[in-house]
């Protein structure tokens, strides 16, 4: 996976249906300087690692229900 480029995000803003993000906000995502976020690149690297996980047919999480156990 190539490192994320500022231009990639700017182009996405222009070509996909996005909100108006300032240059500074886009730059902060690619090269965080203010400690506001810890870096989009780190997140993407972890997303790439998560792709190796075989989830089979597991559905997305929805509500939770009580489980009846043998000891209850």
């Amino acid at each position: 996976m190539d490192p994320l480029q500022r231009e990639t995000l700017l182009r996405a803003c222009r070509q996909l249906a996005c909100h108006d993000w300032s240059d500074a906000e886009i730059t902060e995502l690619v090269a965080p300087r203010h400690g506001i976020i810890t870096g989009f690149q780190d997140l993407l690297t972890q997303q790439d690692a998560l792709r190796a996980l075989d989830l089979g047919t597991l559905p997305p999480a929805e509500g939770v229900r009580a489980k009846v156990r043998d000891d209850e």
Partner: protein
Amino acid sequence: MSDGDLAFDSASDLGRLLRARRISAVELTQLFLARAEALNSLSKAFTRVTETEALKAAKAADSALARGDDPGPLLAIPFTSKDMIDIAGQPTSGGAKGFADGPATADAPVIASLRAAGAVSLGKANLHAFAYGATGENRDFGTAVNAYDPGRLAGGSSSGSAASVAFGLATASLGTDTGGSVRVPAALSGLVGLKPTYGRISLRGVLPFSWSLDHLGTITRTVRDAAALLQCLAAFDPQDPASAPEPVSDYLSPLGDPAPLTGLTIGVPRRFFFEHADDEILAAAEAVLLSLEGAGAKVREVALPEMTHARTVALTVQMPEALSLHASHLDRKPEVYSDDFRAGLALGQFILAEHFIRAKRIMTLYRRQTEAVFDGVDVLLTPATPLVAPEFGTVSTKIGGLEEPVGNAMMRFSTFFNMTGHPAITLPSGLSSQGLPMSVQLVGRYFDEAKLLRVASKVEEEERFRLPRPLLHRQEKAAREDGAEGSGLTRRPAS
């Protein structure tokens, strides 16, 4: 019995005084309103104090007592609610001035339930704006400070909820918990923070942060007060899509049970949850474990799912959901959003849909793996946080060789249980050598808050885990009796 005693009493203690006619609901409310006026400039606990409405509710409570109508343990109990929760006739600010388009038209069901129980709303509690962050920093209303050291954070995002109770400005508070935002500020402020099972308490009328992870929770002085609030608030709400149609247990009766915890097993996930944490906090957690073992419980080590990517999974779910929620306001009122939140929302914009869905599927995996652990144990125990309340201005921490942003550290042990949806409670485990609260977290099976609260009450019974009142209170009182203005304390800028 001084004003200070009453301000730091539990709801159950105040209930006894009210029913013995040793104080009226109006007197009690006036006491708390006076403290809020005197101490809000220091604590930054409130975004809004609603004096007229509070006194009206207090008069109604006195009338009910005079008639012999007693709706239960919350009658006349003064509470605050995070300014994410609708109260009819008042704007819901989300912690940002100018965000609300107008006053809320109806009470959120949780507020309506508390009103029906006779509780008295004192006003709205401050927060990390829109619940985005653990530090409680707030550009518009100031940052809530820690009652045990005003140079430190109260914790967030329900910062004002914790500060209002810790400073003795309210007896209980409602907050929201998306990654630990009730449990963490409660833990850092020496209080009891309860996040019930996902869907146990209605979130209708509550400004969301992340639908998949949001929970309504309570901050109180005691486990019994947490149980009383949960008894009032737990209900199926067919108008809340996340609400669970599960029966509501009796949370209060088991608390007085003097029987030992024989037959209960406490699971200890040492990997991850007992790593990279302050030594004193770890020692306190071990002391709580020994205490529970002494009370008859079995203790055994368990392995929870691999946590390496847990924070990434949570972020991948919550930021696109937050962006979707705030989309229209972001375009119409961009000025109400702080730089930190805008940066987070911008991140949410560029998370791919497949990554979002994958993260929600991994949440299912986490739930199944954690449920399997609960086949062998009744309750899990972890430290509540790896650190005590950080000083203002702290950007990052390094504990046991792990360096991370301070907000990440504060939420490190809590966020996972927002993804699994299990009920969790934090409560004090003692005072650190710096004089700051330390806490443990107990996690229970789905909808088994009754057992969770019973185990927590066993911990609370031990004198050595209880905390003294914040020294601040005594200093404030002395300052006011001397007629001095302000606290006399040296404070750093709150934000």
